[in-house]
C-alpha cells in the first residue's frame, strides 16, 4: 500500500444523511448515484420492452392500443440510451478515472454533482408525458418531423428533456477531459493511461461535438411547432429530410459514445484474466480515435432508402465499411491478448468474451447493412432491430455488467457470489440469443419494425423471441441480488482483488477510503497499465 493511501485512511470523513448524496462532490458517491440511476432506468426501459414483447407474443392486438405501443417503442429507446447506457458509462468513469490516473477527485466536483442531478429532473419531464393530453412521444426515438410534430402537450417536454440530457452529458464530458488533462499523477503520461481512460477521453470529445447538433435540431423542431419557422416544413420551404441528416449526424457518433466505454472496460478485463499485458496498446489508442473520427462521416447509411445521389450513397457505403478496419484491429488485439495467456474465466471475463463474440455478430450484420443495395432489402425490418440490439445489449450492456462485476469487490470491499455471477452470465447469454437472433430471420422474411401486429407467418418466431425477452429481463434481477448481497457482506476482497490486475486503482484498499490520492502517487512503467 502506498504512503499516500495510509495517509488518506486517517482523514476518511464521510458526510452523513441525505446531504451526503444531494450535495455530494465526491467522485465515488456521484459514480454510485449514476450507476444506481442507470440500473433503475434499465428496469424502467426494460419494463417497456416487456410490454412490447407481450404485445408481439401473438399476432393481433392483445394488450395495448397501437398508439401506446408506439409510445412504448419510442420511450423504451430514449430511456435505455439516455437514461441507462450513458449514465452507466459516466458512473463507471466517475468511479474509476480518478482512481486510475491517481487524481484525488474529478477536476470540477460541483459541476459533477450538477451533471448528475439534472438527469432525474430530465427524466421526470420525459416520463410525465405519459399523463399528458396526446400521450408520450410515439414517433420513434429519432423524432422525425412531421410525425413528431403531431405529438400533443408532451412535445415541449420531450424537447426540453433532450436539452437537459445534452447539457448533463456535455458537462460530464468537459469534467472528464479536465480531469485527465490536468490531474494526472506525476509520471502518468498519456501513453501510460489505462485503455478505459483513453476510451473515455475520446468519448468525451465525441459528446462535445455531437450533442450540440442534436440540441440544435430539436430546438428547430420546437420553433417549427410554436414559433412559425419552417426549417423542416416542406409547405414553408423547409426540408423534413434535413432533420434526418441532422439527427444521424448526432445519432451515429452516439453509437460510439455508447460503445467505446464498453470497449474500454473489456480492455481492462481481458488482460487481467489473461495475465498478460494488453496486446498492441498504441494501436488500440489509435484504433479508438479512428473509430471516433470516422463516425462523423457515415451518418447517411441510416438513410440510404430516403434517396440521395449515387455518389453520396457510394461515399457513405465505403466510409461505413472503413470503420470495420479499426474495429477489426481492436478485436484482433483482444484475441491476441488472450492468446497463450494464463486464462481463467471469472464472471467479468465471461462477460468480456461475450462482448467479443456477440458484438462481432452485430458488427457483421452492420457491415451487411452498410452495402447500399442490400440495405434497401433490410431497411425498416426486424433485421435492423436484431443488428442494433446485438450491438447494444451484448455489445454494450454486457461490457458495463462485466465492469460492474470486475470493480464491485474494489468498490464494496467484498467479493461477489461467483456462482450467482456465472449463473447470471449463462442465463443472460442464452436468453439474449433466443431474444435477438431469430429477429434476423423474421427481418429477412420481411417483418417490419415498429408495428404492433404482424402476419401470422411470423407467429412462431415471435413467440420464441418473447420468451427469450422475458427470461432475459427476469435474469437481470440476479445482478441486483448479487450487488445487494455483495454490498451487505461476503468474503473480504484483497487490495489487488484479481491476481492479474495492474494499475493504480488496485494499489488502494478495498473499499478505497472516501478521499484517495490526496498526495499524488508516482507512476512508473511498473505501476502503469501498459
Amino acid at each position, binding site marked *: 500500500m502506498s504512503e499516500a493511501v495510509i495517509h488518506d485512511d486517517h482523514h476518511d470523513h464521510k458526510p452523513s444523511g441525505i446531504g451526503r448524496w444531494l450535495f455530494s462532490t465526491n467522485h465515488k458517491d456521484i459514480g454510485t448515484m449514476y450507476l444506481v440511476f442507470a440500473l433503475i432506468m434499465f428496469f424502467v426501459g426494460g419494463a417497456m420492452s416487456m410490454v412490447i414483447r407481450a404485445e408481439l407474443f401473438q399476432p393481433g392486438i392483445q394488450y395495448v392500443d397501437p398508439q401506446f405501443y408506439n409510445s412504448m417503442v419510442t420511450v423504451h429507446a430514449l430511456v435505455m440510451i439516455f437514461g441507462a447506457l450513458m449514465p452507466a458509462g459516466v458512473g463507471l468513469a466517475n468511479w474509476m478515472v480518478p482512481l486510475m490516473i491517481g487524481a484525488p477527485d474529478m477536476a*470540477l466536483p460541483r459541476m459533477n454533482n450538477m451533471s448528475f442531478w439534472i438527469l432525474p429532473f430530465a427524466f421526470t419531464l420525459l416520463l410525465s408525458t405519459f399523463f399528458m393530453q396526446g400521450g408520450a412521444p410515439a414517433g420513434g426515438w429519432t423524432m422525425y418531423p412531421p410525425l413528431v410534430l403531431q405529438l400533443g402537450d408532451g412535445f415541449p417536454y420531450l424537447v426540453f428533456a433532450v436539452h437537459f440530457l445534452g447539457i448533463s452529458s456535455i458537462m460530464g464530458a468537459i469534467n472528464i477531459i479536465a480531469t485527465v488533462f490536468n*490531474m494526472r499523477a506525476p509520471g502518468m503520461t498519456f501513453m501510460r493511461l489505462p485503455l478505459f481512460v483513453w476510451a473515455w477521453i475520446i468519448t468525451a470529445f465525441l459528446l462535445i461535438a455531437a450533442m*450540440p447538433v442534436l440540441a440544435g435540431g430539436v430546438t428547430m423542431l420546437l420553433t417549427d411547432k410554436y414559433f412559425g419557422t419552417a426549417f423542416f416544413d416542406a409547405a414553408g420551404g423547409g426540408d423534413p429530410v434535413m432533420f434526418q441528416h441532422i439527427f444521424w449526424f448526432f445519432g451515429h457518433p452516439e453509437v460510439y459514445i455508447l460503445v467505446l466505454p464498453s470497449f474500454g472496460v473489456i480492455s481492462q478485463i481481458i488482460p487481467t484474466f489473461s495475465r498478460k499485458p494488453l496486446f498492441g496498446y498504441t494501436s488500440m489508442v489509435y484504433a479508438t480515435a479512428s473509430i471516433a473520427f470516422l463516425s462523423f462521416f457515415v451518418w447517411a447509411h441510416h438513410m440510404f432508402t430516403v434517396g440521395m445521389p449515387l455518389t453520396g450513397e457510394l461515399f457513405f457505403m465505403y466510409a461505413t465499411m472503413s470503420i470495420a478496419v479499426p474495429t477489426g484491429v481492436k478485436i484482433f488485439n483482444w484475441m491476441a491478448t488472450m492468446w497463450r495467456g494464463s486464462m481463467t474465466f471469472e464472471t467479468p471475463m465471461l462477460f468480456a468474451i461475450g462482448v467479443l463474440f456477440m458484438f462481432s455478430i452485430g458488427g457483421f450484420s452492420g457491415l451487411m447493412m452498410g452495402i447500399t443495395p442490400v440495405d434497401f432489402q433490410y431497411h425498416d425490418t426486424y433485421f435492423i432491430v436484431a443488428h442494433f440490439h446485438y450491438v447494444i445489449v451484448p455489445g454494450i450492456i454486457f461490457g458495463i455488467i462485466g465492469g460492474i462485476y470486475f470493480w464491485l469487490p474494489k468498490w464494496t470491499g467484498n467479493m461477489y457470489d461467483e456462482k450467482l455471477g456465472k449463473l447470471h452470465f449463462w442465463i443472460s447469454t442464452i436468453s439474449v440469443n433466443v431474444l435477438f437472433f431469430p429477429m434476423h430471420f423474421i427481418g429477412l422474411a420481411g417483418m417490419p419494425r415498429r408495428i404492433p401486429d404482424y402476419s401470422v407467418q411470423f407467429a412462431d418466431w415471435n413467440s420464441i423471441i418473447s420468451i427469450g425477452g422475458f427470461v432475459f429481463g427476469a435474469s437481470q434481477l440476479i445482478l441486483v441480488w448479487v450487488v445487494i448481497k455483495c454490498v451487505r457482506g461476503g468474503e473480504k476482497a484483497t487490495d489487488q482483488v484479481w491476481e492479474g490486475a495492474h494499475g493504480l486503482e488496485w494499489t488502494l484498499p478495498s473499499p478505497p477510503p472516501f478521499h484517495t490520492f490526496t498526495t499524488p502517487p508516482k507512476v512508473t512503467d511498473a505501476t502503469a497499465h501498459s
Partner: protein
Amino acid sequence: MDKKEQTSQKKELDRKNMLVVIILGSIAIGLYAGFIYFYSS
C-alpha cells in the same frame, strides 16, 4: 511542500480547469448556436 506553494499550485490547477471549461464550453455552445444560425440564414 509548504502551505504557500500548495495554495499557488491549487490556484494554478483551478486556472487550468477553468480554461478547459471555457474552451470546451465555448465549442459546445458555438456548435449549437452556429448550427441553428447556419440553417436559419
